[in-house]
């Protein structure tokens, strides 16, 4: 990675951390819904995304990869709207190559394979990178998708973030397999394990996987070993199940601090530079929150629009009735 690329990555990592902190406090105030933070996993998420070309590659996410989606072109205000419960927050601008956040674990994986396969079939050299967790890797969709990707050679990069937990279920209770990446060989797919708190290492292995996929040499399963530094989401209480000693050990490997140390050692940024970056990110988050707060939500149409390309008569009638009710006609 060039120094510029590392600074760029740090910017997305910092932006995510800033948004995480604001989101958590807004959730406590009742202004945001349940929110899953990426804290601790920023190097993993951003390191992988930093290998992609947003003009042709796609991201098929789970729900914890905000900085990757930002880099790919989703506006920050859409995340704010989403967590404010505004349907406008799910909008994907034309030309932004991402699918929506996925809530149904692993359901995105066969879609990623199909998408990659379709791009290849139409002569493009775009690659699809899909994120998911160690918990999701127990779902049937994971196995079906890896198998299908192996068979079709679809240019897919499966990016498994092993953050140690699926809510409160530890990695050890999820599977008896010694590594999750090791499962790849059973499907004829390349598998690699990487230190997920090392931005450069993640970038390196993902770049190799992306190159391989782009060259038509097939899919890769990357297991990124990382740590979810916070709670699973704002409704979770990790003190019930996380050993504080282990959490403490991981905090010494905090990915943001690691990148900062690296840039400082190379003389690229100093405290003033980090402060400036932090201030820019804070301003950007506040701007996005302000834009999102001003977006109107409470119209009946938002329930009905974009369900069908041409809505069936019943839906058309219901839409009219809901609008009339909202306008006080009924």
């Amino acid at each position, binding site marked *: 990675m060039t120094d510029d690329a590392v600074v760029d990555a740090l910017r997305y990592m910092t932006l995510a951390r800033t948004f995480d902190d604001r989101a958590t406090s807004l959730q406590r105030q009742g202004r945001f819904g349940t929110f899953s933070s990426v804290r601790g996993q920023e190097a993993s998420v951003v390191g992988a995304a930093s290998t992609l070309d947003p003009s042709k590659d796609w991201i098929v996410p789970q729900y914890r990869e905000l900085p990757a989606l930002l880099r790919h072109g989703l506006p920050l205000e859409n995340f704010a709207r989403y967590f404010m419960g505004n349907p406008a927050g799910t909008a994907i601008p034309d030309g932004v190559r991402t699918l929506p956040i996925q809530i149904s674990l692993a359901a995105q994986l066969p879609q990623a394979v199909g998408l990659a396969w379709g791009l290849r079939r139409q002569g493009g050299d775009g690659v699809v990178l899909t994120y998911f967790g160690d918990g999701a890797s127990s779902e049937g969709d994971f196995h079906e998708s890896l*198998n299908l990707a192996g068979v079709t050679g679809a240019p897919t990069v499966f990016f498994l973030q092993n953050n140690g937990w699926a809510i409160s279920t530890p990695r050890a209770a999820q599977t008896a397999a010694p590594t999750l990446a090791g499962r790849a060989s059973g499907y004829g797919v390349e598998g690699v394990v990487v230190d997920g708190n090392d931005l450069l290492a993640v970038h390196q292995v993902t770049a190799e996987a992306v190159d391989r996929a782009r060259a038509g040499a097939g899919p890769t399963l990357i297991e990124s070993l990382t740590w979810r530094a916070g709670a699973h989401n704002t409704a979770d209480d990790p003190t019930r199940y996380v050993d504080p000693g282990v959490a403490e050990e991981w905090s010494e490997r905090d990915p943001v601090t690691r990148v900062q140390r690296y840039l400082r050692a190379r003389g690229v940024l100093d405290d003033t530079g980090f402060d400036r970056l932090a201030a820019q990110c804070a301003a950007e988050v506040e701007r996005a929150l302000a834009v999102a707060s001003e977006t109107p939500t409470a119209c009946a149409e938002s329930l009905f629009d974009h369900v069908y390309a041409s809505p069936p008569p019943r839906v058309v009638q219901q839409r009219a009735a809901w609008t009339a009710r909202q306008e006080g006609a009924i």
Partner: protein
Amino acid sequence: MTTRTIVEGIRDCLYQEMEHDERVMVLGEDVGKLGGVFRATEGLQDRFGTERVVDMPLAEGAIVGAGIGLAVSGLRPVVEIQFLGFGHQAFHQIGQQAARLRYRSQGTHGVPLVIRAPFGGGVRTPELHSDAFEALYAHTPGLTVVAPATAYDAKGMLAEAIACDDPVLFLEPLKGYRLVRDEAPDERYRVGFGRARIAREGSAVTLVAWSAATQVALRAADELAAKGIDAEVVELRSLVPLDTATVRDSVAKTGRVAVVQEAPLTGGFAAELAATIQQECFYELEAPVLRITAPDTPYPLAGVEDLYVPDADRVVAEVAALMAVPA
């Protein structure tokens, strides 16, 4: 015009649509060399190659899930679920994923995906093959659910499904696949969704049916005619969108209505129709809306399936009793 079976209508359509549009591809278990277990895709791989007619790994979730991704990438996949009974293995991809991606992306990503699935009974399949689960899917916003009963409609409605920008569950009657035979044009044509068909005119009672139950209703109507009861048969053709106007007009004319379905009673699509009819035609009804359905039990083994699936005799007996209800 050529006389075709439903399977032939489907095959003809797939062939012509693939010929016409490079983006159309066919995916499923055994759809290639074998041509599908019902031969609906026979000859397609020979003509269009293994890139466009793909034998998929045995994984329904991945078949539909990959179909979603292919559709988002700009292709027009037609996936085959070998039997709708195994749709449960893909239900999350159909009901939870394909059906709401348009909504979840606020219109950016539609899913022009056709999911073909034979369903219903009457052909002595092994266990779990014959279930009629159409109501599960009709209950899923974002999904279009169609169930043609003739070769003409099978060919024309499949073309419409392939042209549709949203996911369509295209239900094919197992029983009617080869038994039903009618005239269908040789050239490409489309039959739009949401227009029910009066399969038989009558004035005394309305029988509403779809897919294979249509044939049962028509046979029953013949027998009822012999008893002096003039039954009208309304064939829905599509459940979503639903043509309530044609049903309403028929009920307004006859005053009595029986809905015939292969699926169990509770929560079935017949219940949806019964509720709609009583809401929209309450004052025209001369008797309660009757549902003639399978019992609320699993689809049984072949030896007793004739007891399970409503047949013409049962429809005749129940409709005769309905006629005896004083207005």
